[in-house]
């Protein structure tokens, strides 16, 4: 409005100083974020092209893609990838169904809405390591109560075998993270206009039809965001496995493999190759979601 009467030069000066201020305000946060992500991942790439083993500091040197060949030709890596993907798919699927149930319940709750919300936040807030211990002690034959339940063998050794160990790990992950999905889905549910349901009911649609024809399509953005975040989060699973099995009985995830190479064996070269491969896998998953399902960047200003 006023800008029209002000000489053009002045406006651009003002815009320029606004840009400068904006960047000065953003710079510290941007630098802090890049310092711990962009720089290290570049550094990891450099390390991954060399032989760097802190146990043999004198033997160094450029090995090209040698570390990648070592990783990609090892059966352990592929088994860990399969473990991680399997755990991710199974746990996120269960979480989605359960989370949707809890979201619908919270949405329709007549009383106790605050109580339900407080309850679901507890698993979210609890330290993952603590939750993992709780489940481990519950299933462990010498401390737990699970084996005294009906239909469970008294001497069932849950962590002695791959499949049952994964069942417990999956359960711990599902318990801890379903609330997060439920809250994101609830936020999506509340954006749906109740009038649509009324109209559908008048037209004779039953509850199942209303759910599949109205709720699901209109919640698509919220669903995709929830699934994207949870999938990426599940893919980096580390804490629960570390506490419960440390990767024994073939339950290693890719993050555990990376940790073992980097920190336990101090083989920074090989470990960095694993790190870079995990990074690429995460990029791939995010890319699939964004391109394949059309997830928009959340939080962007509404157009």
């Amino acid at each position, binding site marked *: 409005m006023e800008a029209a009467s002000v000489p053009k030069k002045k406006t651009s000066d003002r*815009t320029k100083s*606004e*840009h400068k*201020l*904006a*960047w000065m*305000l*953003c710079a*510290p*946060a941007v630098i802090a*974020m890049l310092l*711990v992500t962009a720089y*290290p*991942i570049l*550094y*990891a790439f450099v390390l991954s092209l060399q032989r760097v083993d802190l146990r043999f500091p004198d033997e160094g040197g450029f090995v090209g893609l040698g570390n990648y060949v070592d990783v990609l030709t090892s059966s352990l890596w592929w088994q860990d990838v399969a473990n991680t993907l399997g755990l991710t798919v199974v746990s996120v699927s269960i979480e989605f169904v359960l989370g949707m149930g809890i979201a619908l*319940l919270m949405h329709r709750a007549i*009383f*106790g809405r*605050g109580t*339900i*919300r*407080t*309850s*679901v*936040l507890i698993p979210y*807030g*609890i*330290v993952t*390591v*603590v*939750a993992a211990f*709780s489940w481990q*002690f*519950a299933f462990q034959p*010498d*401390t737990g*109560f699970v*084996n*005294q339940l009906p239909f469970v063998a008294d001497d069932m050794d849950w962590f002695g075998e791959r499949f049952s160990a994964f069942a417990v790990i999956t359960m711990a992950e599902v*318990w801890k993270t379903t609330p997060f999905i439920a*809250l*994101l889905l609830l936020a999506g549910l509340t954006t749906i206009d109740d009038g649509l349901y009324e109209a559908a009911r008048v037209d004779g649609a039953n509850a199942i039809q209303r759910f599949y024809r109205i709720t699901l399509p209109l919640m698509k*953005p*919220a669903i*995709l965001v929830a699934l994207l*975040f949870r999938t990426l989060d599940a*893919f*980096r699973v580390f*804490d629960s496995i570390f506490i419960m099995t440390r990767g024994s009985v073939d339950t290693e995830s890719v*993050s555990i493999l*990376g*940790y073992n190479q*980097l*920190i336990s064996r101090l083989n920074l070269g090989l470990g960095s190759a694993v*790190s870079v491969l*995990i990074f690429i896998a995460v990029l791939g998953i995010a890319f699939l979601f964004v391109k394949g399902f059309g997830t928009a960047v*959340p*939080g*962007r200003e509404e157009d």
Partner: protein
Amino acid sequence: MSDQTTTRDRIFGLFGLVIVVFYALFPVMWIVSLSLKTPATVTVKEGEGFFDILIPTDATTKNYTALFEGGLDGPFLRPLINSLGIALIATVIAIVLASFCAYAIARLDFPGKTAVLAGALAIAMFPPISTVGPLFDMWRTLGLYDTWLGLIIPYLSFSLPLAIYTLVAFFREIPWDLEQAAQVDGATPMQAFRKVIVPLATPGMFTAAILVFIFAWNDFLFAISLTSSDASRTVPAALAFFTGDSQFTQPFGNIAAAAVIVTVPIILFVLIFQRRIVAGLTAGAVKG
């Protein structure tokens, strides 16, 4: 929703409520129960049933007192102080940096705004394990390995995206015109900022702070990778390395007691601030 609620709806609602509360609290009650057991009863005896295991028969606080025996040289007090100090410092710095950035994004127009938001989102998805090796190497060179600062830096950086998204969502809701209105009414710019904007912005900053604190309090991967002693080891890492009387038995009772202690602040946060935490967690997630 509708005003008329049927008995069926009520029964259904009550049923759901009970299930959800049980779901959320059961593992917590279980670890509390374990923490109150004596070494003699913590292991399952022949013939013990489900409820015999669930409910401690001879409740004791020994597991808790044992944690603090020896004070700072004991197994738990140092890690607890480390956890609190590191999480609090990371939270304060993250909120200050995120507030500047979120203010710029919410109020100012500048090229690269979308880039900052997209970059923050990318970092929220970044796999921490990919940075552990390089940070381990860099921190050893820089002398940050096994120090508070060595953990504060990754915590604050990895929590910045969450803090920025939360704060941007809150800041967009603030009626910034009030600042000018206050100045028209004779307030100095400083007064206008302090008396009008700060009270409006505080709830959002507080919410973001809780989320960042929970993130830092929860971390395990950096805590075991970038520390080697009680000088900076946080509680989750210390728990993983708790040793019992012999190398082969885990000190179940002590681990459970420590677990309960680190869970208490989280449960308090959740009880007091549930509405805000939910608002923060879902901020920005539904607009996409």
